[in-house]
């Protein structure tokens, strides 16, 4: 008996509570589906469903087996994915991704260190946003990646959360440009340049809320992402942008560089804003290659991008509508 195929039938009938609908869902005819269920029941010696003329109900025994059947199917899918990965490359291929804002030095360090750390599969590195990475995890087209928080982490395993503190890009002529550290409140009067909201709504809202809480509510938010477009807006449109130190060119980030570009980068006082990253991979699909990538990427972020572990969280005041209490 092909256990996996029979379990697929069991789960489909349990989910649809109907042989016809389950058969349609599986793309097969109803009689062979009924036969498979009967065969499985015989093989297990357990009655899985009660059948009446009008409907099918799962038995208590069936309910007890259902969760494990789903788990087995998920594991078998992961097994096939690993086999595909091994088949597709001579020694196998690890499909990994970094988000587009990761600095060149970090990308280079990952590419250089991975083969040193892990002799197994070849690294195929992609530039993908967090949303794209999550979609490819779900479709089994990506093995591991460096994502931005906050994002929906259900079904994922994560490495430690790392912070890349954000500074501000502002015109050299701005009053705040002479400061060593710029308080957010001193940016009042400037518009803010941010990525488009729909690419990461939770992160976007988080950034604006933190700016407002620290005394900076921009009159307008302008959307831009490309380095030269952002630079142009900062130079002549009365706007400032946010970004980590490691992602800036040397003439912008170094205090003592010649006044060539007209745009300067300064840290924010109190480091209220950060990109928060971690390495992520689908639950149950972590293997030696994934673990090696996680170590290499975490190390690269720490050494080339100055990323640090998170400070302990502040107090948490759960309100009554939270419904839970620890």
């Amino acid at each position, binding site marked *: 008996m092909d256990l996996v195929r029979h379990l697929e039938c069991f789960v489909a009938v349990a*989910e649809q509570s109907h042989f016809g609908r389950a058969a349609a869902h599986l793309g097969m005819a109803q009689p062979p589906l009924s036969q498979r269920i009967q065969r499985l029941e015989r093989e297990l010696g357990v009655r899985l469903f009660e059948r009446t003329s009008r409907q099918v109900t799962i038995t208590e025994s069936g309910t007890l087996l259902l969760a494990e059947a789903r788990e087995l199917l998920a594991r078998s899918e992961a097994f096939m994915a690993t086999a595909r990965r091994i088949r597709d490359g001579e020694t196998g291929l690890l499909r990994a991704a970094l988000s587009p804002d990761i600095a060149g030095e970090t990308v280079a360090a990952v590419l250089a260190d991975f083969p040193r750390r892990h002799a197994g599969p070849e690294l195929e590195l992609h530039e993908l946003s967090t949303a794209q990475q999550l979609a490819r995890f779900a479709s089994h087209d990506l093995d591991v990646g460096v994502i931005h928080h906050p994002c929906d982490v259900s079904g994922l395993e994560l490495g430690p959360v790392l912070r890349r503190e954000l500074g501000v890009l502002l015109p050299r002529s701005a009053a705040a440009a002479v400061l060593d550290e710029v308080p957010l409140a001193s940016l009042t009067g400037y518009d803010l340049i941010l990525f488009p909201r729909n690419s990461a709504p939770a992160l976007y809202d988080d950034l604006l809320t933190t700016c407002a809480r620290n005394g900076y509510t921009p009159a307008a938010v302008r959307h831009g992402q490309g380095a030269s477009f952002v630079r142009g807006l900062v130079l002549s449109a009365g706007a400032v942008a946010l970004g980590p130190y490691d992602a800036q060119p040397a003439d912008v980030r170094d205090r003592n560089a010649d006044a060539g570009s007209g745009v300067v980068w300064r840290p924010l006082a109190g480091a209220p804003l950060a990109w928060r990253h971690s390495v992520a991979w689908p639950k149950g699909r972590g293997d030696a290659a994934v673990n090696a990538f996680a170590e290499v990427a975490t190390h690269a972020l720490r050494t080339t991008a100055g990323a640090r572990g998170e400070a302990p969280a502040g107090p948490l005041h759960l309100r*009554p509508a939270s*419904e839970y209490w*620890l």
Partner: protein
Amino acid sequence: MTDTAARIHAAFAEAGGTGWLHALDIDSGAQIDAGADQPVCTASVHKLCLLVTLHELAASGSLDLGEQIECPPAGRTAGPTGLAAMLDPVRISVRDVAYLMMAVSDNAAADLLLRHVGLDAVNRAMTRLGLTRTHAVHTFGELFATIREDAGPGGAQALTDPHVITRLRALDPARTNRSTPRDMTRLLGAVWRDEACTPEHGAAIRRILGLQVWPHRMASGFPFDDVHVAGKTGTLPTVRNEVGVIEYPDGGRYAVAVFTRTANTAATLPAADAVIGTAARIAVDALRAS
């Protein structure tokens, strides 16, 4: 995907999360399916299953809803409302404990009732009603104990760490109390059509569901004095749910089940609460237009 389902998914994304919805016109059977068969963690939504079970047992004569029960302060399940928040001994009837469980999601009340009837009775009642994908594996006290255990020494504050969130058994439908949006509208439909129990008990369940105090989720999507909203919420870190019934003055009545996960791990996220109302409204408007 239908246009309505796409708009519902877009609303969840816009609010910074993911969600699954099923809406059912209780009388015509018309439906909106936006992930209706997704396995979800019920959290406090499971209190609805317990309430229906109590009334089934009462209807069959094996439980007296008027029976007075003692609730000493020691051993009460923790929570921010109702008996869970009170300091002194309480003597109260079964049905008033059920009212507290539903109106303010009182965790101590829920576990008091679960001790009275047992988890198995709840699961049996749900199976009898044809809810094949709804199952309770632990009491509320046990559920919170898994969270405390998984959160580790950092306590409640650690629950904003995404790394901790991925470890919580309470957020994995395979390992906690679970259901699907479709199962929940099936349950509400049965209650509203008086198929779950006798009309007298059905009316009592509907009364209590109409007394829930929270205005921030499903009810927020229906800012109309002449529309009646009855429901039960459920909340855990990154999980926000509500299932309920919306009744219009022209007689239209709609069971809606909404289950969501947020990307942000913060406990206070008003927009994530409100999108449950927004999504329910998109679904009900579509059902009423068809």
